[in-house]
């Protein structure tokens, strides 16, 4: 078991699945000889050749649509969107097609495609290389949306996504790619899509979040621990459809809930998390359901002053937690 980075876990998962199943292939912009603009497909072209690691023309609707066609035929395409921000031209293919193929054909056809994309901010990416786009898709039954926070989860969940018989959007936090490292088993394992994961057990206050914010929450929890405050952290991992049971359990456990997302606040994933709690375990709560999120501006600016002020960070989490504990 070696310590590897988040992005290495992405590569490892794809390589193992491509070795295991000849129907698995990769397509996207610059994924071939260049190995992807983030190097998330590094080495795959050399190992599997240009038939299975396909540099496509610059056209996202075709990347998704061609992948969908191949998936309906019986292949297992992994389509890369170079940045999550550039998934927009492919939305018609994803929402009108991939999400609805099984349902509309009454189970005659299905569409086992994975669409990967790096998302998130804190990398001087400005408006169009920093966005969180999950909320756009998180109202579309037929889709699953996975957003892992750690290398271990990346490997297990990406392998599960590739083996899944339905379309999976797999969003990878680009700031986590090289920042987050941990021990990851070399062997074949999968993690269940649709299940949240407790990343820290605690008694006083609950954080529910996903992606890079899990790490901000873990750091804030450490700081609070020294003051004797014990923080429970639930990592959603799959943000659509949500793991309702795990959410209710985590909320009820402490009665005080802080929800965190890096996305704009209004209409985000954590709004649904809040609604689930308010509908199912309202009377277990000792405080309002608090939300910490990006401000409601179109996307984070380039200038370092503005980017910093947009982003969630451990300090903001710590402050919100202290307020909630004091409530």
């Amino acid at each position, binding site marked *: 078991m070696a310590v590897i980075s988040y992005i290495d876990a992405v590569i490892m998962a794809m390589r193992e699945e491509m070795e295991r199943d000849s129907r698995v292939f990769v397509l996207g912009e610059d994924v071939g000889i260049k190995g992807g603009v983030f190097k998330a497909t590094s080495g795959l072209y050399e190992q599997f050749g240009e038939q299975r690691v396909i540099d496509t023309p610059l056209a996202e609707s075709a990347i998704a649509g061609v992948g969908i066609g191949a998936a309906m*035929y019986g292949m297992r395409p992994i389509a890369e969107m170079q940045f999550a921000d550039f998934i927009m031209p492919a939305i018609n293919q994803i929402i009108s097609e991939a999400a609805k193929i099984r349902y509309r054909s009454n189970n005659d056809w*299905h569409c086992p495609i994975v669409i990967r994309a790096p998302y998130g901010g804190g990398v001087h990416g400005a408006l169009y290389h920093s966005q969180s786009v999950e909320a756009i898709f998180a109202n579309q039954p037929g889709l699953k949306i996975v957003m892992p926070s750690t290398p271990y989860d990346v490997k297990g969940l990406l392998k599960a996504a590739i083996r899944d018989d339905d379309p999976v959007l797999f969003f990878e936090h680009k700031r986590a790619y090289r920042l987050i490292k941990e021990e990851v088993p070399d062997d074949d394992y999968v993690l269940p899509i649709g299940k949240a994961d407790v990343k820290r057990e605690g008694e006083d206050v609950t954080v529910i979040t996903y992606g890079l914010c899990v790490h901000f929450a873990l750091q804030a929890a450490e700081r609070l621990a020294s003051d004797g405050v014990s923080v429970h952290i639930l990592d959603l991992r799959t943000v659509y459809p949500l793991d309702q049971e795990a959410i209710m359990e985590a909320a009820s456990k402490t009665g005080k809930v802080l929800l965190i997302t890096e996305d704009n606040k209004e209409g985000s994933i954590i709004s649904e998390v809040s609604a689930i709690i308010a509908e199912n375990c309202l009377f277990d709560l000792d405080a309002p359901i608090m939300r910490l999120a990006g401000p409601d501006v179109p996307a984070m600016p380039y200038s370092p002053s503005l980017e910093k002020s947009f982003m969630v960070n451990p300090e903001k989490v710590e402050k919100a937690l202290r307020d909630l504990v004091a409530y």
Partner: protein
Amino acid sequence: MVENRHLQAGLSDEQVLEMYRIMLLARRVDERMWLLNRSGKIPFVVSCQGQEAAQVGAAFALNRENDYVLPYYRDLGVVLAFGMTARDLMLSSFAKAEDPNSGGRQMPGHFGQKKNRIVTGSSPVTTQVPHAVGIALAAKMEGKDIVSFVTFGEGSSNQGDFHEGANFAGVHKLPVILMCENNQYAISVPIEKQLACGKVSDRAIGYGMPGVTVDGNDPIEVYRVVKEAAERGRRGEGPSLIETVSYRLTPHSSDDDDSQYRSPDEVSEAKKIDPIITFGAYLKAMGIMDDQMEKKLNEEIMEVVNEATDYAENAPFANEDTLSKYVYAER
């Protein structure tokens, strides 16, 4: 004397007669749907009328045991040629549980039937073009001798997905046949307001593929060019764009009133070259069909249509409990 064109094109007498039978079946099923709609029995129809020759001519040029088709909503002729039955189509029109296209979940004209390699389609136009390219890519990866065939209207050729799909197929030299059924209208909008080029097939060169425009009322000519395109594809030479020019003989759908935007004269002019009439006349001129055969064929088809209607009308709707089924794979 009329020239024998079908033998030249490599079609036997039996084949052209069978083509005619399917064209006629498509027409009669379509007409029945309008009757059912106008009598309040089914909520919606969208027609193949006027495009049967292009559809059936093309389908016969494919390998109907092996190739994949991605039809658009008017392609009754294509799906009948690929093995869907009148009963299947009526079950879809009545939105009944047994409908193989969707179990009554989709509107009529949204075809799909895996066992016949008819790929499930949606309403937003032209999304099927990239799918056809993906199927060709997959088949090529597996070394299979498969062509994928996809159709769409001329208005729909203005969607981004046409461009992106065609370009992808061109770059990767995939065995895809893109067939534009140009019926000269997109609902109320005539072709001059849809495209500024002379022919839809003028777009082919931009994707490095051959483009041809043919008379969509002539099934033999359509057969010939689709056959050529299929052979090209199988030889690894890549995709082709084919435009079949015909005329939409009905309103856009049962919700449309075409007298708002085109003259009855224009429609009746087009009816004079209705492919059902002209191809029937050709078969007679060739001595392949006589009046009696024609009458018998019509009777047989009406029986099929009647049986299909009765069966579908009496079949049950899907149970309400099934509403939540098949969102995801069942474990």
